[in-house]
């Protein structure tokens, strides 16, 4: 289920459906905790990972048959790198959205019910890198464990 490339790597592939993603995100979080992800980073990683994977499920495979999502995590002493790959549509403009959140507005009925995904990813990661290669989306998320590291 979780082929391990070495003590600090974790890989998981699953079909790009909401249910499989939900289970996959939980598995990855548990696996990273077991491999030594600092507890104070656990929530940040889980939120950003969930938003990135949900984007794949909801947008990359929109109007096409959903294939797989592959997640590769590399845990070092000072940082965690996560690569998320899929074969769906590329990101618009071939770059990650800048993540400006929808304004909250002043009335309850105007409150946004979405549009926070990329904002949260930007807030919680140290670096974001995207490339489209050979029909694959490759999104890399980096989490530094020390602010000035």
């Amino acid at each position, binding site marked *: 289920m979780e082929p391990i490339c070495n003590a600090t790597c974790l890989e998981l592939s699953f079909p790009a459906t909401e249910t499989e*993603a*939900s289970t996959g995100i*939980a598995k990855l979080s548990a696996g990273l905790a077991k491999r030594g992800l600092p507890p104070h980073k656990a929530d940040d990683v889980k939120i950003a990972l*969930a*938003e990135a994977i949900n984007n794949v499920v909801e947008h990359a495979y929109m109007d096409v048959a959903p294939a797989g999502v592959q997640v590769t995590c590399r845990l070092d002493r000072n940082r965690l790198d996560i690569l998320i790959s899929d074969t769906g549509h590329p990101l618009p403009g071939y770059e990650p959205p800048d993540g400006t959140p929808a304004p909250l507005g002043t009335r*309850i009925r105007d*409150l946004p*019910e979405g549009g926070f995904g990329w904002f949260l990813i930007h*807030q919680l990661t140290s670096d974001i890198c995207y490339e489209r290669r050979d029909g694959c989306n490759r999104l890399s998320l980096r989490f530094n464990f020390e602010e000035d590291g």
Partner: protein
Amino acid sequence: MGLTSTSDGTTQIITVHSDRIDAAMAIQFKEDMRAETEACADRVVLDLSGVEFIDSSGLGAIVASMKQLGLNRKLDLAGPQPVVEKVFRLTRMDTVFNLFATLDDALSEPDR
């Protein structure tokens, strides 16, 4: 997804019996909240203490649930775990909802 509800007439307490409110269950959550809040309590307190994870879809479903209540009823949130509280804080939704540390806190300050 599992919601249970108790009411004393003016305040309805809805408890979430799921460890997450995420994209996979956001639509179901919204529908279940609609069904649970058909009664006319002025104030609904959503007990999130059992929820260990929420994503932006889950957040959106809670926002949608508040909109469903209409203008004269309010939705307060109780017992968010740190990760849930963080999603509300980062998105500034903590300025829109009253978040109470515990259900007891929520019930002892009904007018807040």
